[in-house]
């Protein structure tokens, strides 16, 4: 029975009570701890599909060894992983383990989002990892890596390049000869070199090869140097020489190399397996010595590993730690190394005959020895941003290689100050 334009003639208190009960039931369903919360682990990662497949196999094995335990994974792109973990972590949520490059350890540890591992992992186990595989700050270890390196190397298509170049003069000569319009339509069908012209990660090896670097020991930017100008001039000359496609970014580089439409690519270990899967006969060489300076390029080296969230409840901590040590155990590190061609993070695994005798890994070690570790301080983000801007502007013609270093340095100093305000 309803009054015209009014409410049903029922007791409002009873209705409210019913609504309150319904609300409480909903809340109870939503908020009650799940019975399996202690055995349901979560892991966020930024792996490429090849590595995801390896991880999936490893997690299946872990679940088989631990009946009743499930591990849920969530994939994000590297940058998204950082922001999502940061946001979730600040709200007291997020996964038990987070996997990513060692440079994310800096901000995560400063914000207090990840746990130091030295008190949790057996010290003798920690000693089995190469130093780069135990990234940390202020004397604490905040991650354990399953691979090290993550550095750029010279990748070549053996069907097109018989002997990889050892210096940049020869490299560019070869690249010119290999750049061809194969069908005579006026468009280049095969390029000598493909390289990412939008990300400064691809500029850094040449910066080091001219004797410069991004930061000093105290973490202060050192971008305004003659080496920076030379590195930018070198990259601009390659970009303008026609041996590399205009506006070449990562997807274009990757696609062209996979299609056999590029002779050389400058890329990292994450890409090698996908090139083999695409049917390319891949060869690996160290980045060619810079003819002008006589020095070898110095790609940035890093580690990829697992960190544990501070929000892991004590009831689950032992199990999460078990998962972490399982994923970084000798067998699993070797599996990652064999499947992906990545350098192992453990000293014991590096000595295993099949790994020590692997030609590609050997070249990768050689390149790693010529590289320099990526600083893991949060200020690196500023350095990347200002270098990216200048790199793109120089290659786009909006800034000269002579102007860029001073601009980069001023911007970096200002933005690092802002970061600390």
């Amino acid at each position, binding site marked *: 029975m309803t009054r015209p334009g*009014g409410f049903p003639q029922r007791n409002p208190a009873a209705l409210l009570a019913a609504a309150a009960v319904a609300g409480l039931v909903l809340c109870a369903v939503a908020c009650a701890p799940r019975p399996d919360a202690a055995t349901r682990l979560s892991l966020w990662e930024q792996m490429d599909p090849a590595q995801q497949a390896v991880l999936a196999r490893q997690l299946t094995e872990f679940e088989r060894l631990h009946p009743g335990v499930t591990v849920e994974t969530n994939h994000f792109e590297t940058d998204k992983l950082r922001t999502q973990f940061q946001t979730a972590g600040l709200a007291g949520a997020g996964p038990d383990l987070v996997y990513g490059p060692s440079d994310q350890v800096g901000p995560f540890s400063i914000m207090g989002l990840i746990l130091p591992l030295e008190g949790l992992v057996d010290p003798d186990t920690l000693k089995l990892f190469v130093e780069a595989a135990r990234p940390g700050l202020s004397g604490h270890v905040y991650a354990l890596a399953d691979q090290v390196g993550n550095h750029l190397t010279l990748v070549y298509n053996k069907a097109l390049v018989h002997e990889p170049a050892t210096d940049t003069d020869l490299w560019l000569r070869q690249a010119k000869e290999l750049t061809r319009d194969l069908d005579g339509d006026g468009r280049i069908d095969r390029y000598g070199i493909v390289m990412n012209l939008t990300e400064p990660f691809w500029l850094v090896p040449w910066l080091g090869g001219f004797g410069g670097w991004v930061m000093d020991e105290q973490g202060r930017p050192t971008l305004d140097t003659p080496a920076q100008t030379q590195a930018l001039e070198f990259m601009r000359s390659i970009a303008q020489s026609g041996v590399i496609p205009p506006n070449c970014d990562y997807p274009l580089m990757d696609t062209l190399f996979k299609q056999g439409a590029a002779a050389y690519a400058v890329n990292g270990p994450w890409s090698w397996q996908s090139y083999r899967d695409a049917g390319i006969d891949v060869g690996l060489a160290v980045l060619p010595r810079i003819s002008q300076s006589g020095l070898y390029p110095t790609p940035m080296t890093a580690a990829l590993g697992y960190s544990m969230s501070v929000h892991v409840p004590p009831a689950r901590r032992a199990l999460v730690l078990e998962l972490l040590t399982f994923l970084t155990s000798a067998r699993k590190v070797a599996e990652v190394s064999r499947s992906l061609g990545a350098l192992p993070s453990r000293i014991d695994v590096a000595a295993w005959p099949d790994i020590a005798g692997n030609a590609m890994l050997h070249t990768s070690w050689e390149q790693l020895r010529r590289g320099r570790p990526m600083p893991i301080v949060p200020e690196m983000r500023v350095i990347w941003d200002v270098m990216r801007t200048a790199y793109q502007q120089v290659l786009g013609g*909006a800034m000269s290689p002579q102007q860029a270093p001073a601009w980069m340095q001023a911007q970096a100093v200002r933005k690092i100050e802002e*970061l600390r305000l």
Partner: protein
Amino acid sequence: MTRNRTALLFLLPALLVLVAVVAWPFAYNIGLSFTNLGLYTIKDGASFVGLRQYARIFREPELWNYLLRTVVWTAVNVFFHVTIGVTLALLLNKPYRGRGIYRALLILPWALPQYIAALSWRGMFNYRYGAVNLLLGKLGVPAVPWFGNEVAAFLAPTITNIWLGFPFMMVVALGGLQSIPQELYEAAELDGAGRWWRLRTITLPLLRPVLLPAVILGTIWTFNNLNVIWLVTNQGEPGDKTHILVTYVYKAAFNYYRYGYAAAFSVLIFFILMGLTWVSYRRSQRPTWA
């Protein structure tokens, strides 16, 4: 009085939800804007810094560029959303075969998740393999390096957002057109009014009350549209030259961890949008037959 109290009690749950998801975050954000919350203060707690973050905003050398770019971005997008939307609505308002199919096809961009659409468009703007340059090549136009300079790089997300946004205006305009009494057109026709005259004196004035709220909404959405610029230009490339205010704020918060500063910037954006909405609202109060 009892009736009102009952009504208020029924409103209470909704009110509580509104406080929790709108009022509290808004107040929290304002509070945050007076602190120095950032990477190095987050662990041990931020301190009150008064209006210092607001002062920093006005010392930002690129502020006026970001603001101007945001205004251009909003104006161009909303202009094309309305123009294309109304034109298509006028075409779809006529009876002809296959009208339903055209209508469904034209609504598709709106139905597509913005994230996916933006990334697909980014791929389509690829210099060598992108559909846009391949199409231009077929027309004899040289390939455009879409992300090579700031003008082309800003044009790319603008085109994407125009494509994404016109169906909304089209649907709104179509609804408005269908509510205009046919008799008005018949009377005008009898008086000798031509097609253009009928459009100017009947259709557009009667569409105005329907379109104005949609334009206000469209302006706010476009002004605050983070996804399209962020994804299509890959975080403001080349060289941070394609940022609008919201993408810059996002970068300050999530790339540089400057939460207090970003909160202050968000408050500023809120007031800009509030001003715009107020002006638009006042204009919408004018009589439609003026």
